[in-house]
């Protein structure tokens, strides 16, 4: 990245850092959610945008992190920050458990398996009622100030973006892309695709686990149906796709634009909200499959790291 880009980036970060002191708590909450979406869309990008393996149950890592955080806070009395961070451990463990066997599956089969596994996790959490509160979920004490969550979520979003930048400018990143482009050729050229896919999958689970944990604290209440919906996975995907998958700033751009759009436009059309979202998905897939940055990249020969 050029010095100018760094300069602008630092300026934006500085502005975001002091923002909570100047705006209403409504804007702060909105920004917290946007940070969360940046982290989620960016994480999905790490496995699916890079390797082409469509993680259609990525919300499982978010939900696992949320339950880890909520349980550590409510049962073990942990402070929220370490409890949220611990979400990364369980999410990564889950990724290891399911990634190892499932990443052998090709194309649509991997997508279906991920979809199914998310349901398994959700159903298991509902089942172990004594521990997880079953269908009614876990309630946490209401939070007194949201600013700490703001910084925690913000740092998560920044970390995912930095991680993506580091990966994309490394040979590891190129190798992940080669899996997307032609896995067999990559294998034949000495690239250990199985191991690299697993690494990417693990990395892609870490931050959803963390922001899941933070989210549980922020929302004060979680329950299985609201924590593991397919819609959340789809939202991550569509944000990433809209901005441009396989790029650094695509998921950020997509998450910010769609969050703003959602807040400004859809909130006013509560009844047709879902229909509009459905139409938007169809429109993005058909009209802008490469995303905003993908199109710009192709037209102006921009590097992926932009």
């Amino acid at each position, binding site marked *: 990245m050029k010095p100018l880009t760094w300069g602008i980036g630092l300026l934006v970060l500085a502005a975001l850092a002091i923002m909570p002191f100047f705006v209403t708590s409504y804007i702060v909450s909105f920004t917290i959610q946007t940070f969360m979406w940046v982290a989620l869309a960016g994480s999905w990008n790490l496995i699916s945008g890079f390797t082409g393996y469509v993680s259609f149950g990525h919300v499982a890592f978010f939900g696992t992190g949320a339950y880890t955080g909520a349980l550590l806070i409510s049962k073990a009395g942990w402070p929220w920050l370490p409890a949220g961070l611990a979400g990364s451990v369980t999410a990564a463990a889950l990724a290891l458990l399911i990634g190892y066997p499932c990443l052998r599956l090709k194309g649509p089969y991997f997508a279906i398996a991920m979809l199914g596994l998310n349901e398994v996790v959700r159903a298991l959490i509902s089942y172990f009622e004594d521990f997880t509160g079953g269908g009614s979920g876990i309630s946490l004490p209401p939070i007194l100030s949201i600013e700490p969550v703001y910084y925690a979520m913000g740092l998560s979003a920044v970390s995912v973006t930095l991680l993506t930048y580091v990966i994309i400018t490394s*040979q590891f990143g*190129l190798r992940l892309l080669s899996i997307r482009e*032609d896995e067999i050729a*990559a294998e*034949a050229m000495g690239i250990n695709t199985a191991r690299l896919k697993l690494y990417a999958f693990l990395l892609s689970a870490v931050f959803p686990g963390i922001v899941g944990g933070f989210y549980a604290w922020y929302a004060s209440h979680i329950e299985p149906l609201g924590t593991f919906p397919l819609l959340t996975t789809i939202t991550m995907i569509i944000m990433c796709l809209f901005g441009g998958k396989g790029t650094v700033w695509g998921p950020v751009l997509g998450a910010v634009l769609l969050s703003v759009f959602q807040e400004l436009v859809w909130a006013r059309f509560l009844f047709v909200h879902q229909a509009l979202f459905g139409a938007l998905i169809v429109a993005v897939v058909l009209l802008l499959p490469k995303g905003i940055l993908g199109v710009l990249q192709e037209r102006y020969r921009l590097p992926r790291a932009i």
Partner: protein
Amino acid sequence: MRDSLILEVKDLTKRFGGVTAISRCSLALEPRRIYGLIGPNGSGKTTLFNLITGLEHRDEGEVRFKGERIDGLKPHQIALRGIGRTFQIIRIFPELTALENLLVVARSTGGAARRRALELLAFVKLDRLKGEYAGNLSYGQQKLLEFTRVLILDPELILLDEPAAGVNRTLLNDLLEAIRGLKEQGKTVVIVEHDMKVVMGLSEKLFVLDYGEKIAEGPPEAIQNDERVVEAYFGR
């Protein structure tokens, strides 16, 4: 004697459903030579390459590379041991740039790898297109890019599946020269090629496949006059 072989294929058999694609096929390759593998369409040449490089699993037989069994290894393990290949139907990484197509395969990262990649691109006259997506290159250029991608892997044994097809005449001579040059660098090369002039001109020894069986082997002059070979090509 056996230890001096770089590749030894023994009684290799591969079936697809009821069809036997490779049938008790045996080859012995010595280092620093150029071999040709010929045969009519569907005779099993590409399948043989796939078996050697681990993309298909043998049903019977064994493959040894420098004396060690490699059948059963994963494709990337075989590649890292020193067997590189190109594909009959080009398999470059279309949305990576020409340069990235080489860097992604390089065994090291950093300046040296980059210099080597640029050197290889210059060698096939693709240096000016290094930033272009590989998918936007012409067919012949993609073929050459795939060829240089094997070279950056720096394998001891190189399997080339129709390297000359679609490469324009001016570059063809450079390509043939490069293949001969590989031998000077101590490499062993096996070429599948339909252009008989090319394959006869390059190879020191030919293997002929027909219906998955090796029906002849020998120097080009002998093969040209071999009755079974003539029969396999024209007799039906």
